[in-house]
């Protein structure tokens, strides 16, 4: 009987699936905004009407790199190489923070060319909404990564450690892909 109980507790499939569903519903928020954007510029006949600051290109490279380090961290965790896992996790977190700062710098660049959030061309306001909501996801992702990092030091079962690593990995790669999607979307609507 205790075995059933143990099986109930160590089975993380359902919980991991929860993360996938969170990813889907987050995606829907961004899909709604980008569709709203299309409806908006369709009515106006013009898009962003500006050139996206190059800072956003640097931040895009940064977050892609962080996805690579995240992948290496997961691989190390599965191979039981804990020192490596921690190193790559810390690297991912640092890259995440760098991305955060670069995005704020990007906002600063936008302001300096006169593209404020309060704007008669709401397409430009959309940049702040999209990247701002994305930054909230970055914060959530960083918290998950920290949790995995702390987990790698704590005395918990390997199954549980891998579970938390998987949760952070799914979410972090999603956050990465969403930003690439948003960036490309904005680039395509610069006119």
């Amino acid at each position, binding site marked *: 009987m205790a075995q059933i109980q143990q099986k109930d507790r160590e089975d993380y499939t359902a919980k991991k*699936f929860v993360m996938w569903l969170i990813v889907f519903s987050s995606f829907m928020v961004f899909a709604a905004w980008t569709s709203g954007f299309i409806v908006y510029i369709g009515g106006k006949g013009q898009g962003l009407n500006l050139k996206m600051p190059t800072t956003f290109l640097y931040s895009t490279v940064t977050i892609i790199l962080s996805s690579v380090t995240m992948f290496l961290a997961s691989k190390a965790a599965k191979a039981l190489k804990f020192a490596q896992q921690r190193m790559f996790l810390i690297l991912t977190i640092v890259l995440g923070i760098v991305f955060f700062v670069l995005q704020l710098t990007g906002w600063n660049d936008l302001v300096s060319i006169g593209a404020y959030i309060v704007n008669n061309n709401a397409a430009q306001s959309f940049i702040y909404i999209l990247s701002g909501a994305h930054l909230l996801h970055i914060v959530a992702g960083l918290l998950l990564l920290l949790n995995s990092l702390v987990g790698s030091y704590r005395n918990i079962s390997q199954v549980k450690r891998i579970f938390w690593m998987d949760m952070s990995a799914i979410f972090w790669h999603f956050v990465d892909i969403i930003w690439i999607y948003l960036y490309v979307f904005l680039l395509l609507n610069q006119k």
Partner: protein
Amino acid sequence: MSTLSVQDHHGVHHDEHGHEHHHDTFLTKYIFSQDHKMIAKQFLITGIIMAVFAMLLSILFRIQLAYPDKAFPLMETILGRFAPEGRMDPNFYLSLVTIHGTIMVFFVLTAGLSGTFSNLLIPLQLGARDMASPFMNMLSYWLFFIASLVMIGSFFIEKGPAGPGWTIYPPLSALPKAMPGSDMGMTMWLISMVLFVASQLMGGINYVSTVLNMRTKGMDLWKMPLTIWAFFLTAILGVLAFPVLVAGVVLLIFDRSVGTSFYLSDIVLGGVPQPFEGGSPILFQHLFWFLGHPEVYIVIMPALGISSEIIATNSRKPIFGYHAMVYSLVGITVLSFIVWGHHMFVTGMNPFLGGVFMITTLIIAVPSAVKTFNYLATLWRGNIRFTPAMMFAIGLVSFFISGGLTGIYLGNAALDINLHDTYFVVAHFHLVMGSAAIFGMLAGVYHWFPKMFGRLMDEKLGYLHFWITFIGAYLVFFPMHFMGLDGVPRRYYAFTEFESFERWLSVNTFITWAAIMAAVAQVAFLFNFFYSIFFGKKTTQNPWNSNTLEWTTPIERIHGNWPGEIPTVYRWPYDYSKPGHDEDFIPQTVPYSETMSSNLPHDFENNPVGMEEYNKWTNTQRSNEEVK
């Protein structure tokens, strides 16, 4: 996190994994419970309280509509500055309509209905110990609770609750100075709804994950009861649609508080031109109705699932067209995402686009009709037991038909020019999603009350409640069709100023008295519900002779649901009155090997071993016959 304790009735509890026996305190049992059954009850009781509150609001504005010229001193006593000198303040009237709609649609028929029955039945009918994430489930309830408090709290601020209607269209909702109901009350509405959506997402994500990952042995998707199919598809709808509402609401919040112009353009407020430029209020309607339309199916689908189960059980017949029932639910789910434009026919939409939305809308009639005909075919020549739950389930079918038929008219882009924003719309949706869904919910309460509380509700009070509510609902909503056809617009404070509408005053008075009668009937339910929790007749293990898994759990409702192993499932849930069996029901846990006399060849599709055994058995039977 997981505190699933498997109770061992034989007293040999192996504790080698260091799992301490779980002791519940009052806090962990009733307040911060992670047990899905307790969370279901929390949702139900909060939902009932919210429903009573929203019903009282509707009685208040019905009184205003029936007696627009009369002063009621009592009203001033109760409502204070919202009814100076006993006459209701017009702004407060708008708030009443808004909050009535919001609470009924979201707090009662979404959270109260899905929250209660998905939580209760998904683990119980699928054979799971609890939800995928019990902690998230608890969080879901508490966010809902806080959202409810904020929504009701908006009645206690100076300018009163939100007033731009439950659809909160900008610019009215985006300009805090536009009217009292757009000010602080609107802000609280937005806060409440953001919390509410977070709650529903947590719930919905849990339901989907549980259904897909935590079914017991033998419970493949095609052996799931229709309740679970309905809850599952409802949860998928919620997970896909609610985020879109959040997206729309975030932009609205920015327009209100930051000064962006997503939805605003060319606004003049009190003679002063406002700086907003370039926005489009139609954009909000697109985002809102992309949620809003799936939302009405989020409301009705669980009710349909519940009545499928109740009608089959109480007709003592298998549900007619099980697969068709599932496919029509899937059809409704998919179609619900491509019809939102029918709420916007008169917003200046391209007529070609209107035509597309009209076609997709009318196609929804097909799965809806499939469901209706299947209910009727299930009832046809059934051995019907008219329990109160059954009465309410049949009531749902009645409302679904009479409300659904008018949907075919409203779905027409051309007819909608006349009918939009009239009482015809009010009549339509109050029947098809209001009354039908609340009847589904009440049916569920009467049917699963023994599972929730271990006691039965009183039948006679149930019948009284049913008949008065059923007749009352028709008396309230049926005359509204005629008002709508005459062009009487919804949400108006009084019709005395319009000569052409004045003749409807007598009808309004009639509707108000019917509404008061139906509201008083709810006392019978409330008394029955709360009295039976403590003093109702004790239930038996399986009071309705039902097939589904929840009736195999002990009456005491233990944490972890089943003592010992979770039962295995061998058959679909609708083996009622199967020819050749000595009882008129065969629970899902009974293997075919125990029911040789009632097995049929199609029970063994994709099961060659079983088929062989079946053939062997029928051959033996035949040779025995020959010997005789």
